[in-house]
């Protein structure tokens, strides 16, 4: 007798599968809200950012660049490159969605994040049905949670009168330090990553001699990324 290995997924399954990741998201989203408020973004801007950009590391980079005085155009460009990484993640699981219409795929793809990608990869081991509904449940739960965390963080952050006294201006660098450290430890490509870090830091120091801060940041980042890519083979 032939067994059916087809798994039935649903929107609500997507929601429940997402719940374990929500706590991690909450704390990051919360911190993101505080940082964005400290960097001078209004509540509306923060809400819109978390709704449309919806990516932790990209949002922090936006706040960081704005705090360093970058014009909007440069921020957008930098964020574009950072987000291309998300496109690559999408490409990895894209084959499973080949059956669905392009519009559906676009909606699903625009809500993709590292964490939901991780859940998707570990979950979708066998053939499944209603993948789109499951994905929607997963992504929407994560996204709503993220926006709420950002807004609440921003509200609470706005109440603090003198951020510098409590060291809050260090929140953003601390966030990057934490994210970078976790990224490096997770990827375990220590040699490459240390090379990139060295080049980015040194490159910045060098570039800052001649260039304004945010330009130096981007020049250094691009150079470091190129060096990282080129030394792979």
């Amino acid at each position, binding site marked *: 007798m032939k067994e059916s290995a087809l798994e039935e997924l649903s929107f609500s399954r997507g929601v429940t599968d997402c719940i374990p990741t929500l706590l991690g998201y909450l704390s990051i989203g919360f911190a993101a809200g505080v940082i964005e408020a400290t960097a001078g973004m209004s509540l509306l801007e923060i809400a819109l950012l978390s709704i449309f950009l919806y990516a932790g590391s990209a949002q922090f*980079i936006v706040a*960081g*660049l704005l705090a360093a005085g970058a014009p909007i155009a440069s921020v957008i460009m930098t964020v574009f490159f950072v987000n291309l990484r998300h496109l690559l993640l999408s490409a990895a699981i*894209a084959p499973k969605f080949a059956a669905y219409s392009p519009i559906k795929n676009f909606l699903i*793809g625009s809500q993709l994040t590292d964490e939901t990608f991780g859940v998707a990869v570990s979950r979708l081991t066998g053939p499944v049905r209603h993948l789109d509904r499951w994905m929607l449940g997963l992504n929407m739960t994560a996204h709503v949670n993220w926006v709420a965390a950002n807004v609440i963080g921003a509200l609470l952050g706005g109440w603090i009168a003198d951020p510098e006294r409590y*060291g809050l201006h260090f929140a953003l*660098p601390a966030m990057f330090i934490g994210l970078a*450290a976790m990224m490096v430890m997770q990827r375990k490509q220590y040699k490459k990553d240390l090379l990139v870090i060295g080049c980015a830091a040194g490159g910045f120091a060098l570039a800052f001699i001649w260039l304004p801060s945010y330009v130096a940041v981007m020049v250094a980042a691009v150079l*470091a*990324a190129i060096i990282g890519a080129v030394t792979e083979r």
Partner: protein
Amino acid sequence: MVFLSKLKLPWYAKKFLQHVPLAVMTALVAQSVLTDGERWLSPDEDLEWIALFPTLAVALLTRSLLITVVAGISVMALLALAA
């Protein structure tokens, strides 16, 4: 995702993009730790540089973003008090 189901990026472009987040974050940290936006900070006025190391240590030890940020802020606050 619409396009990428059909698009194949060349290997060097993929590799470049993989390194971008780390590169950007490092550059931003360097910028905030070494400068005040306009000029270099001299070692005796640069508190963030001192705060960098304990924060990094906490990040490596706890692997928790929340704890790292709280620790970083606390160190900064303590340094601001002591200065």
